[in-house]
C-alpha cells in the first residue's frame, strides 16, 4: 500500500508537470519554469509562519502568488532594459535565498527540512494523511496533486485552441483577439500551482526536471502538439515508475532516480528518434553521400 501511494504521487507529479512542460518548451520558457519552482519557497515558508500549520490550501495560495510575483518581476526587469537571462537569474536566486533564510531562522517553527526543499521526501508521503468528517482520505499530497491536475486538465481542455495558438505564434494570437497576457499568466499560475503541490513531496529539482525533460523528449519525437503532450506524459509516467524501482535497488533518493531515468530516456530519444535523431541523421547523410 505504501508503494502504491508513493508511485501514485510520483505519477501525478509527472503527469501534471509534463503536460505544462510542453507549453513551456514551445514558448522557450523552460528556465522560467526552473525559476518559478525555486521561487515558490518563500511563499511556502511564509504560509507556514502565518498559519502555523501545514494547511495545504494556505500554502497553495501563498506560494502560487509568489510564483506569479516571480514572473511579474522577471518581466518588469526585462522591460526596464535588463537582458532576460540575467533577470531570471537575479529574481529566482533572491527569492530562493529569502526562503532558505526564513526556514533556517525559524527552524523551530517550520516543520520543513532544508534538504527536503531540494529533494523532497516522497517516501514520507503515505504517512501524511488527512481526514474529512472522520473518514480517512488518503495522503494529503495525493489529493493536492489530484486537485492541481484536475485544474490543469480542465483549463487546457476548455482553452486548448487558445493555448496552442499562444504557444506557437503569440503575435497571431493577439491579432485574433485572444488575450495573450491573460493566458500567459494562466499558464504561469498553473506552473506555480504544480510547483507548490509537488514541492513538499518531491522537492524543487524534481519539479524542474519533470517540467523540462519529458517535454523535451517528446519534442524530439513528434511534430504535433497533441501527440507531444501524450508522449510527454508517457515519458513522465514511465520515468516515475521505473525511477521508483531503481531507487529501491540503489537505496537512494527517489526523486533523484526519477529525474535520472527521465534523463536517460531523453538521451535515448536524442540518439534514436526516427525523424531527428543523431543515428537517423547519420544514416541519411550516408545514403545521400552514396547516391551522390
Amino acid at each position, binding site marked *: 500500500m505504501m508503494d502504491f501511494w508513493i508511485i501514485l504521487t510520483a505519477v501525478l507529479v509527472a503527469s501534471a508537470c509534463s503536460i505544462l512542460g510542453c507549453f513551456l518548451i514551445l514558448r522557450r520558457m523552460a528556465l522560467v519554469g526552473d525559476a518559478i519552482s525555486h521561487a515558490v519557497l518563500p511563499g511556502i515558508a511564509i504560509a507556514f509562519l502565518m498559519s502555523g500549520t501545514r494547511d495545504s490550501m494556505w500554502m497553495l495560495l501563498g506560494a502560487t502568488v509568489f510564483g506569479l510575483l516571480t514572473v511579474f518581476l522577471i518581466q518588469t526587469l526585462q522591460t526596464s532594459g535588463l537582458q532576460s537571462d540575467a533577470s531570471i537569474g537575479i529574481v529566482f536566486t533572491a527569492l530562493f535565498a529569502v526562503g532558505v533564510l526564513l526556514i533556517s531562522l525559524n527552524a523551530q517553527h517550520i516543520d520543513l527540512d532544508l534538504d527536503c526543499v531540494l529533494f523532497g521526501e516522497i517516501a514520507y508521503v503515505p504517512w501524511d494523511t488527512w481526514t474529512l468528517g472522520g473518514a480517512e482520505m488518503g495522503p494529503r499530497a495525493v489529493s493536492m496533486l489530484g486537485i492541481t491536475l484536475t485544474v490543469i486538465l480542465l483549463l487546457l481542455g476548455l482553452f486548448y485552441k487558445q493555448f496552442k495558438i499562444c504557444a506557437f505564434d503569440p503575435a497571431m494570437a493577439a491579432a485574433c483577439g485572444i488575450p495573450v497576457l491573460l493566458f500567459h499568466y494562466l499558464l504561469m499560475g498553473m506552473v506555480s500551482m504544480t510547483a507548490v503541490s509537488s514541492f513538499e513531496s518531491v522537492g524543487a529539482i524534481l519539479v524542474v526536471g519533470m517540467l523540462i525533460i519529458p517535454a523535451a523528449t517528446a519534442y524530439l519525437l513528434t511534430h504535433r502538439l497533441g501527440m507531444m503532450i501524450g508522449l510527454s506524459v508517457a515519458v513522465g509516467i514511465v520515468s516515475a515508475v521505473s525511477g521508483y524501482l531503481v531507487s529501491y535497488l*540503489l537505496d537512494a533518493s527517489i526523486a533523484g532516480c526519477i529525474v535520472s531515468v527521465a534523463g536517460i530516456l531523453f538521451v535515448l530519444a536524442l540518439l534514436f528518434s526516427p525523424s531527428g535523431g543523431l543515428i537517423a541523421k547519420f544514416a541519411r547523410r550516408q545514403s545521400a553521400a552514396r547516391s551522390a
Partner: protein
Amino acid sequence: MLDWLISLWSDPNTRWILMGCTLLGLGSGVIGSFTFLRRESLLGDTLAHAALPGVCVAFMLHEVKSAGLFLAGALLAGVAAVFCVSAISRWSKIKPDAAMGIVLTFFFGIGTVMLTHIQHSGSGSQSGLDKYLFGQAAAMVTSDVYTLMGVSVLLIAAAMLLFKEFKLISFDPGFARGIGLPVALLEHGLLILTTVAVAAGIQAVGVVLVAALLITPAAAARYWTDRLPAMLAFAGVFGALSGASGAAISTLGEGIPTGPVTVLAATLLFAVSLLLAPRRGLLSRALRRRGLRAEYARSAVQRSGALEAAEGGERR
C-alpha cells in the same frame, strides 16, 4: 556593532574566512561580468548544479573531504555539462535554454542519487557533503580557505592578463575572429574560468545559489557605467561586499547559512543600483523623462503661441 566587527577581526579563523569570501566575491564578480555580457549568465546555474555529481564522485573515490579534490571533481563535471549543453543544442532542435534545463536537472538528479547513496551507506554520513547544498563558510578549514583565495587570485589575474581578448569576444566575436584571435580557444578558456569560479564558490555559497555570485554583481555594475574596466571594478567591489557581509553576518548565529545572506546582500546592491544609478537607474530615468516632458510642454506652448500670432489670432 563595533564589538562585533572587532571580534570578527580578532578571531583568526573568522578573519581568514572573511578574507576568503571577500576575495571569492571579487573574483566571481569580475568573471561574471564577461559571462553577463556574453548573455550566458544562467550557464553558471547549470555549472553549479552539475558540479554535485563531480563532488560526490571525488568523495567516493577518496573518502576524505578536501576542497582541492572537490574543486577538481566539480571542474570535471562542469566541463562535461557544458559539453552536453552545446552538443544538445547543436545536434538537435532543442533550444539552448531548454538544453541547459535538461543538463542541469539530469546532472543534479544523478548527484542526488549519489549523495543519498553515500549518506545511506554510512561511511560518509558525517561527510558534511550536505553543507555543499546551501554553503556554510564557517565549516571551512584553513586549507580550504587557502584554496579559495588561490583560486580567486587566479581568476582575477587571468581576467587582467586576457582583458583585451575577453573584451573582444564579449562584444564582437566575429571581429575577434576576423583579426585572427583564437576565438574558440578563448571562449573555452572563459568557460573554464567560470567553472572554476562556480566550483570554488560552492563551498561558501552552496550549489543552488552560487550562480547569483556571477550574475547579480555584474548586472548591478552594468547600471553604473558604460565602460568595461569600470564595470569590472564595480562588479568586483559589489561581489566582495556581498561575500564579506555574507561571511560576517553568518557568524552571528549558529543556524544562519552563508549562501542566502551573501545572495541577499548582492540583491540589495542590485536593487540600489537599479533605482539610484546615475543615468541608467530608474529614478534618474523617471526624472529625465519628466524633465523632457516639461520641456516639450513649454516649447509646445511657445510654438502654438507663435502659430496663433502668425495666423492673426489673439495670444493667450
